[in-house]
């Protein structure tokens, strides 16, 4: 019994890892590989946001900022030759950890909508800072000349290299987060969202765990940002602002905040959808920027929130339950006959 349970819980991991490894072999197109790099990186952001909103009940809109901070710190350190690229990524993540601790401690005391407002404010302030501190960050036009990532002697040159690196990060974040959620920490945080008063009186130090989850998700975003800057070789403030926030929210909404796999699915759907919308709408409309794509996605968000509040994953779950009921129904009929 126990070994079949263990197999069932490992099964999705095995499938996903197999798909990831086989994909570049089956579809060697650099375009597809590159898209999947973004799916992985944005997936990390979606997972972080989904955990904060779903498990912890914290409406924090500041994920893109951690992504950007990680990217800028690693990028700046590399451009100026201060530190090797891969150490820069770790320093970037550490920097993000410290900043998210300093900001999180006071701000996480806010509830619901007010937390959303405050974190939104931080997102915009950070955007302004990225532009205004032009001497360090390169301002509006961005940070240029970021060297490729290298560890030891190995240089990450091709899309495939970054593909495996980013998916390694994504899977690692997924695994770590999944462990945390199914542990004493996960129970503490879920209980604090369900009934703060009961949770407190059972000994859960709610502010402490909220801060821990907050820092965890921000470090994840910071690491993703660090790799992001070496992949793109050029980053600009516009990569880390409101537009990215809307995309991540879309992933969370579509994928459903209930399950981590759903969030990864959300990243896959939205990243690819984004690309298709951009390609096809571009043929129809004269003006084409992210803001025009956004019309489509805005309508999509509204429709999903109205009709599918639990997202795709919730929808898939409902289909699954329906399928199970139909199966049970026929099984009973056949055994009675």
């Amino acid at each position: 019994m126990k070994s079949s349970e263990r197999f069932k819980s490992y099964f999705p991991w095995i499938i996903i890892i197999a798909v990831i490894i086989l994909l570049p072999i089956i579809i060697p197109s650099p375009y597809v590989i590159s898209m999947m790099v973004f799916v992985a990186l944005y997936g990390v952001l979606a997972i972080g946001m989904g955990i904060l909103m779903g498990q912890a009940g914290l409406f924090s809109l500041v994920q893109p900022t951690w992504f950007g901070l990680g990217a800028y710190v690693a990028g700046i350190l590399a451009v100026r030759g201060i530190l090797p690229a891969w150490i820069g990524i770790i320093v970037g993540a550490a920097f993000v950890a410290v900043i998210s601790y300093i900001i999180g401690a006071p701000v996480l005391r806010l509830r619901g909508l007010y937390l959303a407002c405050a974190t939104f404010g931080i997102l915009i302030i950070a955007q302004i800072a990225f532009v205004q501190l032009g001497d360090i960050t390169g301002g509006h036009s961005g940070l240029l000349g970021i060297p490729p990532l290298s560890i030891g002697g190995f240089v990450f040159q091709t899309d495939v290299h970054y593909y495996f690196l980013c998916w390694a990060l994504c899977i690692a974040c997924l695994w770590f987060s999944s462990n945390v959620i199914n542990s004493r920490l996960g129970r503490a945080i879920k209980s604090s969202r369900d009934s703060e008063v009961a949770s407190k009186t059972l000994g859960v130090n709610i502010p402490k765990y909220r801060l821990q989850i907050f820092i965890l998700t921000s470090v994840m975003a910071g690491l993703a940002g660090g790799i992001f800057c070496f992949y793109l070789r050029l980053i600009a403030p516009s990569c880390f602002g409101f537009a990215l926030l809307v995309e991540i929210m879309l992933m969370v909404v579509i994928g459903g905040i209930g399950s981590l796999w759903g969030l990864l699915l959300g990243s896959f759907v939205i990243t690819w959808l984004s690309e298709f919308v951009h390609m096809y709408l571009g043929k129809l409309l004269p003006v084409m920027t992210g803001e025009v794509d956004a019309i489509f996605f805005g309508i999509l968000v509204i429709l999903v929130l109205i009709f599918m509040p639990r997202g795709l994953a919730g929808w898939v779950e409902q289909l699954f339950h329906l399928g199970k009921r139909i199966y049970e129904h026929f099984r009973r009929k056949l055994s009675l006959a």
Partner: protein
Amino acid sequence: MSGITSGSIYAIVGICWSIIFLVARILNFTTGEFVMLGGMLTWVFLSLELGLAPAIILAIVGTVIIGIILERLAIRPVRYPTEITYMVITIAAAVVIKGIILVTCGFETRLIEPFIATGPIHFLGASLTPQAVFVIGTLVIITIGLSLFFNRTLFGKALRATAINPDAARLVGIRIGTLKVFCFGLAGGLGAIAGIIIAPITFIGHGIGFMSGLKGLVVAIAGGWSITGTVLAGLALGLAEGFFAGFISPGWKDALALLIMIVFLVAKTISFSPRAKKESL
């Protein structure tokens, strides 16, 4: 543009946020786009060779209609309403409206001619352009008008009752659905007015809604969501921005408002007396 002028605009936009938040408990992120629509629609109608007055009226009516459509199509049908769902929906709607205007009107920013083409007016030792007088005058009219409305009319009192206790209001027979639609329309109208009166002073374009709306939110929060508080906070923010313009570069100006909002929000959670801990029932 003087601090009082911009402060007046922040105050009006802040009132738009407050009305919807108090009555419907929704953070309506399309408020900023109402402001943008006011200016842009006026420009659209002006370019159709209508006079200034008809263009303004049509722009206001148009924005009111858009506000009502927003409530009916995107807010009312929500099946599992939570505060955060509504907020995300209004953000999405804002993005849609902004995008549509971008596609139809293009990237360029516009300027509308001032309403009265005379020289500056001198008042209490300061010189203001006639447009600035318009702005401040409009704020005064709106504030007085709203306070009369909320205190003297039955409908206004119904709105206040709903803001205080929605369940009790329902029990007394107040139709909250109708009130919500009204509030969205009212916020649309007021936002459009703000956008129109400021249009001759600053440029208008598809992108101005974002910051205008955000600053209105800051002001509404700092003002404790009340009309008086919002007006005072708006003027204070306008003056503060003017004051700090000398010390910090203009790029950081917007960050100041947001910082104020965050400080306000966090400060409210800190209890200064050691005995007053956060209550939960």
